[in-house]
């Protein structure tokens, strides 16, 4: 038997061995099948907690109520009751701990999102009161006349 024929095979096995050893060092210990099956559950387990720890930005109106109850009461009684504080005031993140004043968006573009009238039949959009941007007080900003916490109030 000419044993030299097997030498390439030993080289191949050696290479596979190197890969398996490398695997011990390079692949995280918690990598494996977690969950339903190999198809949908093959992953690094600790990644799930990493995603859960992702920082939250929008805190919701309940957290605004803690300090800004008056504004919220006015809002809740108005036609803008369903509009979120953070839609216009931006995400509060750690306010007031990290930033005292949230950057407030006072541009026309913000209000036009809902109140640029679009004549779409049978659409919830057409049910919203609105203006045609080109024709309505082009040089002004909406809040100069309209109170966003109580849109029916005329602030002129």
């Amino acid at each position: 038997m000419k044993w030299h024929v097997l030498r390439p095979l030993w080289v191949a096995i050696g290479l596979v061995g190197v890969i398996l050893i490398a695997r011990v060092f390079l692949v995280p210990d918690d990598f494996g099948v977690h969950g339903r099956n190999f198809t949908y559950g093959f992953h690094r387990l600790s990644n799930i907690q990493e995603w859960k720890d992702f920082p939250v930005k929008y805190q919701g109106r309940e957290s605004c109520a803690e300090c800004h109850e008056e504004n919220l009461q006015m809002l809740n009684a108005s036609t803008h009751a369903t509009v979120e504080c953070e839609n216009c005031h931006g995400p509060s993140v750690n306010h007031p701990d990290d930033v005292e004043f949230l950057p407030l968006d006072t541009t026309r573009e913000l209000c036009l999102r809902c109140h640029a009238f679009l004549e779409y039949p049978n659409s919830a959009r057409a049910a919203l009161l609105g203006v045609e941007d080109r024709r309505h007080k082009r040089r002004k900003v909406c809040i100069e006349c309209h109170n966003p916490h109580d849109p029916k109030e005329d602030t002129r």
Partner: protein
Amino acid sequence: MSCSRRDFLKDAVGGTLASVMPLSAFVFLSTAEAQAAVAESKTRWAFLVDTNKCVGCGLCVDACKNENEIPYDAEVTRTWVERYVITKDGKTHIDSPMGGRDGYTTMDIDGEEIDPDDIDKAFFVPKLCNQCDNPACVQVCPVGATYQTNDGVVLVDRDWCIGCGYCIMACPYGVRFFHPVHKVADKCNFCYHRISKGMEPACVECCSFGARRIANLKDPEDPVTKIITTERVAVLKDEYGTKPHVFYLGLDENVR
């Protein structure tokens, strides 16, 4: 002395088999984790979109970008809102500028002005990752960087993704993209960091019209689950067998 062909083949096959055994170490499974994983989860997240209520304000897209740190001006987004205008000549006009991030404030579509009298119907359709039950994107990931949690959400491991893009090509709904900064695959994950804390996804929170709602399908008392199970809902592209879990009220036949 020459070796016989039989001996040679026998040794070759034996050697190959011997080397294959340790290859079984490729699939790693710890018993404790396996048990925990197979244990039934009490949650299966699902989403309900009501296109009858969506007004196309785009605040959901805006909120998603802020909440999930997707670069604001990059032309990729985890969720978007499409506008459909079907005119009387039978044409369907569709657009989604920047995914609807800035809302829709004009009747023009693609530079074409559309006369309201020509319109048969027009509506807005929010879209996001369907967190499918048979996610094609997870099936094709070559390295196990994307996967499905026990509660049905499909996540991407940013530290393991090699950026091959196979998952992006495999998704029939086009919800995946390469994150412009992290340079790995990314997509909506129902704000997993929020729903795991009992909060709602940012887009659900910021929708003033109730067009977006999150549900736990395994909770029969969940009001949104009740709608999904008792009212007539539809899903997108069910012909692909992905079993999507974003349900639509008022889904029109023109929706792509």
